[in-house]
Structures are given as structure tokens and as C-alpha cells.
């Protein structure tokens, strides 16, 4: 394609985008305007109907729970796709970094880094558990908690080395957590059908507003999403780490 044709194509596409974007932006409520009637209705209804204080949780895991189900499976598909793409190919070999200098051991990280990793990884696990359990009360929930929990594993790698992480990282458990979390969401949705309602209807006892366990299926769905995201992001990190640390091309192309 010649330069002129490419420029013409870009100009047409950019003009179409500008018009669509302009029309869309013109229809937005003005900056600092009051809440829409839908937002006011949910703020009013959610605490009474679902016994939760974080209305966003009630929307993502109950009123629009089906959207979150699809998002969860998008993440599952992405993690599965990355695992397939990043497997060692036939012209690649797994070799530990030590192989290049067999007489020399990898220098351990400095004591300061090690201490930081010990403190930070335990804190991250604590904050992750706090975020997943308080989803119905305060901002946060399964997705954020899952990433925080998975990041505890990265910090262990920072404070030790690849071999330690590979030896103690529970690969099977992470994959199971990813799958069980994704299926658990569907299972809780099916509970609604079994109880005679519709898919994902809130059939568990709602509890008292403001308690840690309240909101019926909302904390349970938070938990399944947390399991799935924690497993998924840990697998993601370990696949990328494998590529960087041990997988290399056998026949040097360059």
C-alpha cells in the first residue's frame, strides 16, 4: 500500500472516530452533575434489598452478576491462551541459569531485600484476605484481592531465586484454584435455578447489613472470583518467569 493510500485510509478512519467520539462525549452528563436516577435508585435499594454497604459489590456480583461471569471466563481464556502460547517449543530448551557457569552459584539477594520480601509477602497475603472478605462492606472484592494474593508469590521470587520458587510453588494447586474459582461462580449461579429462581438469583440467607457475612451469594461469589484471579495471575507470572529464566532457543538464530 502506498504512502498516500495509507494516509487517506488513516484520515477517513480518524474522521469517523472523531465524529463518533464527539457525538458520544456530547451526550455525557456535564462535569460535577448530580447522580443519575439509576445511581440514586441503586444507592437507595441495594442496602435494603441485598444487605450490603458497598453498592458496587451488589451491582457487580448480583444485579449485573452475569457480566462478571463473562469477565471471569475472559480472564480464564486469556490465562489458558498464554499457557499454550508460552509452552516450550521443539526448538527451545529448559536450562537453569547456572548451566552457563557451573562452578559459580547464583549470588543470594541482599539481606535487606530478603527482609523486605518476608515482611511484604506476609502483609500482601493479609491485605488480600482482608480485601476479599470485606467486599460486601468496603471497596474491594475478589478481583483486586486475587491480584494482591498472587503478587505475594512474585515478592517471594524477588527475595529468593528462581529455584526456590519453582520448588515450592504449588503449580497443580494454582491451576485447580483457577478452574475451581471459575466453575464455582457457575455453580453458585446454578443454585439459583435449583431453588426455583433464575440463574444467579440471590438464594442464600442475606444476614444483617454491616456484618462481615451478609448479602447472600455476594460474599460467596467474591470468594470464587478471588480464587480464580489469584490462581490465574500466579500462573501468568510463572509462565512469563519461565520464559525469562529458563527457556531459551536451542539453535541460536542471531
Amino acid at each position: 500500500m502506498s504512502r498516500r493510500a495509507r494516509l487517506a485510509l488513516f484520515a477517513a478512519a480518524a474522521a469517523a472516530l472523531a465524529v463518533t467520539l464527539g457525538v458520544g462525549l456530547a451526550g455525557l452528563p456535564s462535569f460535577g452533575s448530580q447522580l443519575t436516577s439509576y445511581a440514586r435508585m441503586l444507592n437507595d435499594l441495594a442496602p435494603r434489598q441485598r444487605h450490603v454497604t458497598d453498592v458496587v459489590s451488589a451491582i457487580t456480583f448480583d444485579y449485573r452478576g452475569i457480566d462478571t461471569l463473562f469477565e471471569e471466563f475472559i480472564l480464564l481464556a486469556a490465562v489458558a491462551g498464554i499457557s499454550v502460547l508460552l509452552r516450550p517449543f521443539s526448538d527451545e530448551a529448559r536450562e537453569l541459569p547456572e548451566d552457563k557457569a557451573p562452578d559459580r552459584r547464583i549470588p543470594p539477594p541482599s539481606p535487606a531485600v530478603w527482609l523486605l520480601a518476608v515482611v511484604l509477602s506476609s502483609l500482601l497475603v493479609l491485605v488480600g484476605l482482608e480485601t476479599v472478605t470485606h467486599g460486601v462492606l468496603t471497596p474491594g472484592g475478589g478481583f483486586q484481592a486475587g491480584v494482591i494474593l498472587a503478587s505475594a508469590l512474585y515478592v517471594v521470587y524477588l527475595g529468593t531465586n528462581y529455584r526456590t520458587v519453582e520448588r515450592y510453588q504449588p503449580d497443580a494447586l494454582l491451576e485447580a484454584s483457577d478452574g475451581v474459582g471459575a466453575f464455582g461462580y457457575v455453580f453458585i449461579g446454578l443454585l439459583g435455578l435449583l431453588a426455583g429462581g433464575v440463574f444467579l438469583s440471590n438464594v442464600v440467607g442475606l444476614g444483617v447489613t454491616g456484618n462481615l457475612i451478609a448479602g447472600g451469594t455476594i460474599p460467596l461469589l467474591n470468594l470464587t472470583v478471588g480464587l480464580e484471579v489469584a490462581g490465574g495471575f500466579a500462573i501468568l507470572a510463572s509462565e512469563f518467569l519461565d520464559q525469562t529464566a529458563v527457556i531459551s532457543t536451542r539453535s541460536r538464530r542471531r
Partner: protein
Amino acid sequence: MSEALIAVALVWVAASGTAVVLTRDPLHQAFVAGFFGLALAFLYLSMQAGDVALSQIVVGAIALPLIVLLSLAKVRKDRE
């Protein structure tokens, strides 16, 4: 008070977003993008969107820099 906070947040987002574009080295860009993510999280927080701010922090500060850094390390290793 909250309007001043939002103004600070918007300026911070504009400045750090421009900085991401102007940084040409991918390694440096990963760090600058982390600060841009922090600015976005602050903007969401100043507009009282706590859930979105938390999601922005975990994606912008943990997931994105990690994947960018590991990919850069892989590319560099293959060039050796």
C-alpha cells in the same frame, strides 16, 4: 476542597500521561507508566470511586509492570 483535589488529580494524570508518551526507552517507560497508573488511581479516588481505584492500583502497579519487565528481560536474553 474536593474540587481542588480533582483538579490536582487531573493535572497529575495529564502530566504523567504525557511523560509516558515522551519516554522512548521501554524499560524506563514501564516505571513511568506505573506512576501514570498511580495518578489514575488518585483521580478515581478523588471522585469517590474506591472500587475502580483499587482495580487500577492492582493492574497498574502489579500486573502491567511485571509483564512488561519480564517481556523486556526475555527479549534481551534472546539477543545475547
